[in-house]
């Protein structure tokens, strides 16, 4: 472990280049690439490895007050063309165990994703995490396939207001709200989050979807319905980021089918201040963060831009 610490520290000192560094909602990141919630996210050892792979920040799997077993397999289905369908069922070790998992976090930038079925669920969790070495929180208000948790909260502006206000009143750390396509106007939810004091919006979560095996006639996911992620959702996510950043004052973190630096640029032009990667990891593993950062850097150089912020929301000019 000590060796690992040395490696990390060495790495940290090596970073002179500030072209890609950003400050979003008060969080200082060396680059705008985050690990999206739900991917790779419960082990400190993996977090350290991600840090060495140049991740800008890590959003943990969504943590609940009690441990959740999640659904029986299949929980992940690979679809054609770089898309996935998943219904993991918010499986997680619970706030207590996870807070101990990351208790000795050296200096990996971790954002803890929290999920709950009512605002009361959050304060006890925050108490467990707030003194740890973490950047802030992401509230998952948009899990599309677990009853009473996630989207059912995210579809109710009043619930959103309550949850965000509660969380904000229990921490001084930045609070990001993750939204998705539910049964209400996304902008109403984003506005509610803003009015309640959220510091940023992550858009978007997976989209409710399904696939059926044609030989057996049986839905493949054990939960039948799950969330669609990957390349398929990108144009929808771009639209959501564009509309939110146009109508709500909060910084937006773009998420949905980002596989290349070109995708990252497109999200930033649409208004994203940072981006989250997930599905792409299934294709190229931990290397995705470094490669996309390199592409972003070259793009900025080619366009003669000094900093990423010059790029954010440019598309709104037209």
């Amino acid at each position, binding site marked *: 472990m000590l060796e690992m610490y040395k490696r990390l520290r060495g790495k940290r000192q090596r970073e002179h280049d500030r072209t890609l560094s950003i400050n979003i909602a008060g969080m200082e990141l060396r680059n705008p690439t985050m690990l999206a919630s*739900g991917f790779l996210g419960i082990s400190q050892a993996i977090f350290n490895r991600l840090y060495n792979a140049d991740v800008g920040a890590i959003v943990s799997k969504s943590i609940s007050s009690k441990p959740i*077993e999640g659904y029986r397999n299949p929980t992940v289905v*690979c679809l054609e063309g770089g898309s996935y369908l998943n219904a993991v069922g918010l499986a997680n070790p619970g706030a207590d165990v996870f807070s101990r998992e990351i208790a000795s976090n050296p200096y990996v930038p971790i954002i803890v994703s929290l999920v709950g079925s009512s605002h009361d669920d959050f304060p006890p969790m925050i108490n467990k995490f707030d003194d740890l070495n973490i950047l802030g929180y992401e509230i998952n208000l948009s899990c599309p396939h677990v009853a009473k948790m996630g989207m059912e909260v995210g579809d109710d502006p009043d619930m959103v207001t309550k949850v965000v206000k509660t969380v904000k009143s229990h921490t001084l750390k930045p609070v990001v709200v993750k939204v998705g396509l539910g049964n209400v106007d996304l902008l109403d939810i984003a506005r509610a989050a803003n009015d309640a004091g959220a510091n940023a919006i992550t858009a978007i979560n997976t989209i409710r979807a399904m696939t059926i*095996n044609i030989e*057996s006639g049986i839905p493949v996911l054990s939960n039948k319905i799950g969330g669609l992620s990957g390349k398929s959702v990108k144009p929808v996510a771009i639209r959501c980021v564009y509309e939110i950043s146009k109508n709500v004052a909060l910084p937006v973190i773009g998420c949905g089918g980002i596989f290349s630096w070109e995708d990252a640029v497109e999200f930033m032009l649409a208004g994203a201040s940072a981006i989250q990667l997930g599905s792409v990891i*299934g294709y190229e593993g931990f290397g995705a963060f470094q490669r996309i950062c390199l592409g972003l850097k070259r793009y900025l150089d080619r366009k003669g831009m000094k900093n990423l912020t010059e790029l954010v929301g440019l598309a709104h000019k037209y």
Partner: protein
Amino acid sequence: MPININILRSVFIERVQNETASVKTILFKDKVSSKAEPGQFLMVWIPGVEELPMSVMVADKEHSAAITIRRKGIGSTALFNKRIGEMLGIRGPYGNNFKIAPSARTVLLVGGGTGLVPLIRLAAKLNETRICCTLIIGASSKREVFFENTADAVLSDTKHKIIVSTENGDYGIKGNATDAMTQVLKQETFDTVYTCGPELMMKKVLDIASAYSLPIQASLERHMKCGIGICASCCIEDKLVCKDGTVFCEKQLSKMNEFGIFYRDKTGRKIVY
């Protein structure tokens, strides 16, 4: 156009073979799986029930592969009860595999239970390159021993020895696989030790091999969901068994404080063995 191994493929069971009262081998036609390397696994969907990671077993039929199941949980029992003609969904093969050093002349294989599957597939490959092979099959009792004849068949072209150990001693050497391993190592040495089975057994195999400073390759098992390295439910330390494994060498294993100590359950909590 090249097949995307991640997309579920519907296959139909062509043969079912009883290995023991609670273990069966299921054979099906699938060109991609037939080329799987020893140690690689398939994600096998039992429609409407469960999806399980299963090491690819040898099949004595062209363009075919097999899987070997022990009846245990809901999923494995449903799979165990499948009949000829019934459908399974598969994706993969996934993961890395057992490596054979060009210099290797004699190797030792130590397996327990269904952990023998990748070792049998490895044996078939060793047989091609005529590498002398000693296989230790560990079981609780005679009635739990399987793959003895299969192993003998796949190794027919090379010098080989098959040693069976049973804990109750009603067949072969009395004791478990690692006891047998210790005995064998007293008489002869090997270029590499390959192992797959219960993690505590593999841990013991690692310790013994290290004592004799023998290189070792172990195929690990962890709770798996995606099989493609995105969910990390199969993580051990900072490694993903589905992507960085399933096979790890002594260098990696000795760095893993978790190896043989605990695994993570479906929630991600660490459970001590």
